[in-house]
């Protein structure tokens, strides 16, 4: 039998738990292809979900990691467009068939392997997600909600206690629920991922504790951070209010309830739906909400659901949103009699159904959490473990484990009150300020779990034993031991499985803590999926208070040091915390006590006051009177009246300073107002735009012929190597690294300096792009015994951080001249044209998302189109931090900037022998001063030699083509249609060898002209006019509240370096180089694959760190 199928089917753990790497180690290319064929056949025929999924992950990994390395280096292939379209439409099966047929016809290639890897990977996750969803729907107690299709069928009724308004003059009783958040001691290496619990229930164990929080220095005492409220109102609407996000809405129709991204109330909507108040089966039912409410609550009546999170920021790793969802669901279920008690705590059965509904809510809202996340609904410290699926369970026969885990709450016999206190006396809980998306990490964990690679599988075993150690330490009451165990967990298994669980910020904090407190620092405790946000530091109780103050200060300082390199969403905070031993708790308030929290009134009262008193409902009038009483009461602390005044009376508008400083920045960075106005006017008039970026449809675009490129994937001939070595020795070459961009994709628009991002550990330490590039240049220089100067080109956002960083790190000891070439141009972002948004979202092929996420996305896009119309299409984008309103104007400008700002002149002065430049992107980590390539460039005597690589699926954005018969690079934006790009074998890596004198000549300059700035400026302007201008849409983050972020698409323009190849008077050559040399790291999610496929090791081999 096929060994891989044997691994999947075997009941013997020794065979089943073998790693894919071990099985594939000795296989030849033909063996692998044969195994893949059989495995594909097997997964098509298998009825067993988990056999199918494991086979899919095996196939994905073989095509991603094992097959490419066995292909001849000079293989070239195309990505079939039809298959790509299937992928975008999520027709994975069809895509796989298309790619396999292509492979049969044209033989294996890196291109087709990348397509198959992606298709299998996506199909595997889709299969898993579908199964979790099916399980969520089939949990008993959830099924009925999917059958209700009409408001008249609604089977829930509000409890009578909530309708009791006493004498009629007072408001409805108010139900209030307070819920804590959860903090996990250990999650046994992310074993709370649903799939893991369902496939490996015995390995899925989490120990978590419910905690109340307070921000140190702000709150008097820790409180349950989540409060939710529900009451009957005298208007037939479903009112949702989020006091922390400052949003409220009156929902009057059922379809509005399913429009998640229309406002900030998506989570509340998901909760109301998951609680069955508006059952998910009603989606698509076009009835007024009053029909449903009159049946559920009574004619003319409505419901109000309010959430309040006590300023706990996003990314706290304490599962705030899942527990908020749980709290909201619980209160809604109490109100409709779906859980037994209206007030007080919840029974175990109730908590289980609330947890099941919270999972449903996460799915409905398009978010995702693990099965331990609703832990705050439970009291105290509890062990949560996967449970085997037994007869009668909906999962029986499908998966080994159940969707929902079992909770065992530890009583005081197991973990004494003394231990709980000691824990509180030692642990310092903080939010470091980073709020990163943990989703990619969870995907990596799932994949690695299924592939069973040796070190990671061993680490999983260790993580499981660590949980036992924590339990033991808790029983013994030994907090110091807990610290040592959680530290071991963090540095050991967690980072073995996911190296990205930590980052430079966290490592520095641990280092500083150890240095400052020595033996009295007992350990580090990673919370949730990754470090950087919510984290725990355990100290000797004697120094806890000191450590709290110290940590607050140290975190702020470290953040300041790293904030240009890492995406921080907020200022770090230190929490006070207490273990919550009663779980989610509800109270019913009636009469005068039935008042909402202050912030609710702060949000709604201004709106009430704008209306005529007679238009307000009696209940609202009563509340206004009560508020009036409170404000007039001289005995009260007046916080309510102050808050109301703040909301209603205007304050000095801080935005003025924002506009002013934006103005200053534009001045400073060389903003060309005239050019900007011209572009805006062209944009509004439709003369430029996304569709106008494209070359005319009559343009003939074909793939290049073999004579158009020089294939150096098998290495350059020795004579070229010698020529290159001699040039290096003679000091003829320098390296230019483009570092002006803000890495929009790298941090999803967070606006940090990508060059400084410490993205990966090399030789035991996180190192950033800048350091890696310098280390490569250092090594080339040493190997070939010649001085190689290095230049980093910068922009408005990256210039100061890069300069400061280089100075702060003593230029990393770089021995040769090191230059920073500042940008001389900046653009101002504009509100996009609806036409362009529609073009990007409706006319360009788009990756369709999973069904529910797609709904959320469509709703969000409708909202963003509304935003663009409201903000003014083509108007200046100024509603953000000034730096976020600016944009770099494309990497083309970075080369002329070298001429304009005098950097090139200085370089030539210091090293007059210099003749050539190696230009590359900040994220092209494999680019180095390769003597063979340099020799080839010199020998060809062309001005520019562009390096291209054979195309893979992920290499999108243009390529090398014959345009009307002439070879040149074509940007993705300029492709006359989507399909054209897929006809091209080579992708532009952007790495370019430049002959300095040739380049100057192309600009109409000579070396001596560099001394005359006005001549240079004129030359650059002349050349700029010959370069096409592209309009692009970029995502920009706007941060607000406590770590909240909105992402807006904004329009900007750019000119791109590849278009130099279109100039008839610039001679160009094209070198086909190996993939590892030309591949780019555009997104952080690529990092894991990059580390695993040997690329990181290849980069490391090019570097000399000191």
């Amino acid at each position, binding site marked *: 039998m096929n060994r891989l199928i044997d691994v999947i089917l075997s009941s013997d753990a020794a065979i089943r738990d073998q790693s894919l790497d071990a099985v594939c180690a000795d296989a030849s290319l033909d063996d692998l292809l044969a195994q893949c064929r059989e495995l594909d056949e097997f997964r098509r025929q298998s009825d067993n979900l988990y056999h199918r999924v494991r086979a899919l992950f095996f196939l994905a990994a073989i095509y991603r990691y094992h097959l490419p390395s066995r292909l001849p280096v000079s293989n070239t292939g195309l990505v079939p467009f039809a298959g790509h379209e299937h992928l975008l439409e999520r027709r994975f099966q069809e895509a796989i068939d298309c790619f396999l047929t292509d492979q049969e016809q044209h033989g294996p290639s890196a291109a087709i392997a990348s397509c198959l890897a992606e298709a299998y990977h996506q199909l595997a996750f889709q299969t898993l997600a579908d199964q979790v969803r099916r399980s969520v729907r089939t949990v*008993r*107690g*959830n*099924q*009925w*909600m999917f*059958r*209700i299709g009409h408001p*008249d*069928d*609604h*089977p*829930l*009724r509000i*409890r*009578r*206690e909530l309708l*009791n308004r006493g004498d009629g003059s007072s408001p409805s009783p108010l139900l209030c629920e307070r819920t804590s958040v959860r903090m996990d001691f250990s999650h046994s290496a992310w074993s709370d991922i649903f799939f893991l619990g369902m496939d490996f229930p015995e390995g899925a164990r989490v120990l978590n504790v419910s905690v109340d929080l307070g921000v140190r220095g702000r709150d008097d005492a820790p409180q349950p951070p989540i409060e939710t409220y529900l009451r009957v109102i005298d208007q037939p609407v479903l009112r949702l209010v989020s006091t922390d996000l400052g949003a409220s809405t009156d929902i009057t129709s059922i379809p509005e309830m399913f429009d998640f991204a229309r406002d900030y109330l998506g989570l509340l909507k998901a909760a109301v739906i998951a609680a*069955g108040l508006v059952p998910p089966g009603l989606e698509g039912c076009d009835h007024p909400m009053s029909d449903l409410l009159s049946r559920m609550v009574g004619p003319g009546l409505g419901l109000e659901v309010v959430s309040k999170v006590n300023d706990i920021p996003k990314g706290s790793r304490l599962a705030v949103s899942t527990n908020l969802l749980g709290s909201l669901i619980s209160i809604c*279920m109490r109100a*409709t*009699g*779906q859980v*037994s*008690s*209206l*007030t*007080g705590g919840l029974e175990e*059965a109730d908590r289980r*159904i609330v947890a099941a509904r919270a999972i449903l809510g996460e799915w409905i809202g398009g978010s995702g959490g693990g099965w331990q996340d609703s832990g705050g609904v439970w009291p105290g410290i509890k062990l949560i473990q996967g449970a085997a699926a037994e007869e009668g369970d909906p999962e029986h026969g499908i998966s080994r484990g159940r969707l929902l885990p079992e909770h065992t709450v530890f009583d005081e016999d197991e973990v004494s009150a003394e231990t709980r206190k000691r824990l509180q006396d030692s642990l310092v809980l903080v939010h470091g300020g980073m709020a990163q998306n943990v989703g990619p990490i969870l995907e990596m964990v799932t994949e690695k779990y299924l592939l069973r690679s040796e070190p990671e599988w061993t680490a999983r075993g260790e993580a499981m034993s660590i949980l036992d150690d924590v339990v033991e330490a808790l029983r013994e009451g030994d907090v110091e031991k807990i610290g040592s165990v959680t530290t071991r967990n963090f540095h050991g298994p967690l980072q073995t499985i996911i190296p990205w669980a930590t980052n430079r910020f966290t490592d520095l904090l641990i280092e500083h803590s150890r240095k400052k407190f020595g033996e009295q620092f007992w350990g580090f405790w990673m919370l949730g999926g990754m470090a950087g946000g919510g984290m725990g530091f355990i100290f000797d109780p004697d120094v806890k208070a000191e450590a709290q103050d110290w940590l607050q200060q140290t975190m702020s300082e470290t953040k300041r040091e790293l904030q240009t390199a890492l995406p921080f969403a907020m200022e770090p905070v230190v929490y006070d915390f207490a273990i919550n031993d009663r779980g989610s708790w509800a109270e019913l308030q009636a009469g005068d006590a039935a008042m909402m929290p202050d912030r609710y009134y702060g949000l709604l009262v201004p709106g009430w006051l704008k209306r005529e008193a007679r238009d307000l409902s009696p209940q609202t009038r009563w509340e206004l009177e009560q508020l009036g009483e409170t404000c007039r009461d001289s005995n009260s602390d007046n916080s309510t009246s102050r808050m109301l005044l703040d909301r209603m009376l205007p304050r000095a508008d801080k935005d003025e300073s924002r506009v002013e400083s934006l103005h200053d920045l534009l001045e400073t960075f060389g903003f060309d107002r005239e050019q900007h106005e011209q572009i805006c006017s062209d944009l509004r008039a439709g003369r430029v735009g996304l569709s106008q970026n494209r070359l005319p449809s009559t343009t003939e675009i074909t793939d290049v012929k073999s004579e158009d490129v020089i294939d150096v994937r098998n290495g350059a001939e020795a004579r070229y190597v010698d020529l290159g070595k001699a040039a290096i020795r003679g000091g003829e070459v320098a390296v230019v690294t483009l570092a002006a961009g803000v890495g929009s994709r790298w941090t999803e628009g967070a606006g940090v300096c990508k060059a400084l991002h410490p993205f990966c550990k090399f030789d035991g330490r996180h190192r950033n792009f800048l350091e890696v590039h310098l280390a490569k240049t250092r090594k080339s220089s040493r190997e070939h015994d010649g001085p190689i100067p290095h230049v980093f080109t910068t922009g408005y956002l990256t210039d100061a951080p890069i300069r400061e960083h280089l100075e702060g790190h003593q230029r990393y000891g770089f021995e040769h001249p090191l230059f920073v070439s500042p940008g001389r141009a900046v653009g101002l972002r504009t509100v996009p044209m609806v036409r362009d948004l529609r073009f990007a979202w409706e006319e360009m092929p788009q990756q369709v998302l999973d069904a529910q996420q797609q709904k959320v996305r469509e709703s969000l896009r409708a909202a963003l189109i509304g935003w663009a119309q409201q903000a003014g299409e083509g108007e200046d984008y100024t509603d953000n931090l000034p730096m976020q309103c600016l944009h770099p104007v494309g990497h083309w400008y970075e080369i002329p900037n070298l001429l304009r700002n005098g950097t090139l002149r200085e370089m030539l002065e210091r090293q007059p022998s210099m003749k050539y430049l190696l230009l590359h992107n900040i994220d092209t980590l494999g680019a180095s001063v390769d003597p063979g390539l340099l020799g080839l460039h010199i020998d060809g005597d062309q001005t520019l030699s562009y390096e291209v690589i054979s195309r893979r699926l992920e290499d999108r954005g243009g390529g090398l083509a014959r345009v009307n018969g002439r070879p040149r690079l074509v940007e993705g934006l300029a492709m006359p249609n989507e399909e054209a790009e897929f006809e091209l074998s080579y992708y532009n890596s952007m790495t370019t060898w430049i002959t300095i004198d040739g380049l100057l000549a192309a600009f109409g300059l000579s070396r001596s002209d560099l001394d005359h700035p006005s001549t240079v400026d004129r030359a650059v302007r002349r050349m700029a006019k010959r370069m096409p201008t592209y309009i692009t849409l970029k995502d920009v983050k706007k941060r607000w509240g406590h770590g909240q972020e909105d992402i807006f698409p904004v329009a900007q323009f750019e000119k791109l370096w590849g278009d130099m190849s279109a100039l008839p008077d610039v001679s160009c050559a094209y070198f086909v180089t190996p993939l590892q040399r030309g591949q780019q790291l555009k997104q952080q999610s690529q990092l894991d694959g990059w580390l695993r496929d040997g690329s990181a090791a290849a980069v490391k081999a090019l570097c000399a760190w000191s």
Partner: protein
Amino acid sequence: MDIRKAVITAAAPDQHTLPLQRLVDRQGQDKTALQLIVEEVTGAGIEELCLVIRPGDQVSYEQAAGEHLGMIHFVDQTEPRGYGDALLRARDFVGDDPFLHLVGDHLYLSDSDTCCAKQLIDIAREHACAVSAVQATRENKLPDFGAVGGSHVARHTDLYEVTRVIEKPTPTQAEQELIIAGLRAGYYLCFFGMHVLTPFVMETLEHLQSETVGHESTPAALSSRGANRSITLSDALSVLAQRQKYLATELKGTRYNIGAQYGLLIAQLALSLTGRDRDHILTELVELLAMRNNRA
């Protein structure tokens, strides 16, 4: 098990006049709802009947009872303390005998020659235990009924051993606790308004009521069962299911709740469409529909 007594409750504040409503029976005879109910029980061999009513209603009930007045004992429910309490008023009447119980706002139409009450009593006699008539009911009607969970009795179709009884369950509870194998998804066995009960039920009701009176004011009692919630028959049947053999059966017939909106009209239509005047009523209905459509 010999069943010769019946108890009908008709004391609910909003329902007490329902048995006095007039309808035309299958034979075209003008009768009160009470007469129809009484005929249902006499057809099942019941000899004595206890009617639990509101104080002051007896005279009108006597007039509505027709020829069967002689077999009826009237008992007043002096305070409106709910369904369980109403049934408990018949405690002395029942004594130590098993009895048939019907609610006063339901009419029953059998699909066979045997009336519904007779079908139920036959089963109770055969199995010598309490039996409730039930009907598969869609989940959107759950807020109106008590419902049972249990399993099929071997070799009997439509007969169930009851393990769980919940009054007006939410669909969440129903799905977790009341699923019956063989029923369509979203359907549950809800009470038909007709039971054969044993004296144990009366004892249990009495016990539950004394407990409630004792704890009425404590918050725990209020929150666990809801404030002001009175004892229902379902509470007692829930205890019965745990202590004694207790069956539920689906009868060949249909119940009509004349207390619901248009309930009386629908019951009348059902009677007429299965009786002597079927063609006449159908003709009238078609004419009505045609007129309606023309206007539309």
